[in-house]
């Protein structure tokens, strides 16, 4: 493979004929070489999905790189920028595969099943302790009801599901990840202020939950 600087990557990819072809072949190799490391946490190389996913993501990455070539600002190595695009495409695809709408619905239904009693506390609290905790949790629920907009509440319900990606929750709410993050950030800020005003610390509430 030819070693290229950022400038030669750009000029070769913008060039024509054999120069461009060679640069594209090299770039494909860069992406294919890097992707398995990006996926390693989620997918084993022995998984039947692995090879087709690498192929699909590589193809999509090359298209997107060519399409967005003008937006590269040279703040990193060109190949790092390309890997970044490949990672985004690959993880988006993995999330989509894993959290299709149906599986999200199942999770929501399961969420309503109460946890079996007796598994939670290793020491039964005194009636006074229980009362104080129950009171605090009740207060926090009330605060949440007052402070959260319906949209924020919907986001919280969805994201309360273990490990559900922001991206998939956003899709379901017919918005995008950026907007959903902003929505959550506003909700967090609001609640943080309110709890501060009420003299309740998040840590206290969490502790109450743990011992419920």
């Amino acid at each position, binding site marked *: 493979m030819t070693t290229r600087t950022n400038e030669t990557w750009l000029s070769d990819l913008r060039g024509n004929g054999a120069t461009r072809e060679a640069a594209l072949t090299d770039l494909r190799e860069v992406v294919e070489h890097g992707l398995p490391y990006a996926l390693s946490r989620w997918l084993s190389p022995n998984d039947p999905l692995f090879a087709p996913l690498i192929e699909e993501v590589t193809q999509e990455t090359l298209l997107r790189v060519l399409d967005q070539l003008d937006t590269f600002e040279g703040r990193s190595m060109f190949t790092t920028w390309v890997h970044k695009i490949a990672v985004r495409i690959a993880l988006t695809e993995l999330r989509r595969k894993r959290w299709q709408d149906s599986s999200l619905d199942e999770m929501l239904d399961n969420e309503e099943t109460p946890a079996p009693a007796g598994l939670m506390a290793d020491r039964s609290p005194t009636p006074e302790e229980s009362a104080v905790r129950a009171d605090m949790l009740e207060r926090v629920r009330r605060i949440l009801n007052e402070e959260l907009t319906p949209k924020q509440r919907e986001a919280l319900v969805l994201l309360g599901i273990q490990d559900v990606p922001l991206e998939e929750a956003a899709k379901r709410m017919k918005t995008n*990840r950026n907007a959903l993050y902003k929505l959550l*950030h506003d909700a967090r800020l609001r609640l943080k202020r309110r709890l501060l005003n009420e003299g309740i610390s998040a840590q206290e509430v969490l502790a109450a939950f743990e011992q419920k």
Partner: protein
Amino acid sequence: MNIKEIIQNIRNRLQKKEELSDEAIQGFLRVLDKVRVEETSCKEVFAQLDEFVEKEIHGQDASRLMPLLREHLDLCSDCCEEYEALMSVLEETARKS
């Protein structure tokens, strides 16, 4: 079942859906300490992620140089996953070549 019962039934189901689970509330509270007024979006994080990761690879204190990005990674699981994936690509490909 009469009409009143049907309406009550629907109402119950709606209310049930609206109730926030303990897990949802806990997940929300857990990050509250880290939340600050200043923030950066997923989009901006993506725009700077390659630069951030290269700084880390070169042993620079990326979190100090780009603090808002670091904070976002602590609060946003999707961006954090992408950051970790990109880190392993760079670490591993650097090791091999």
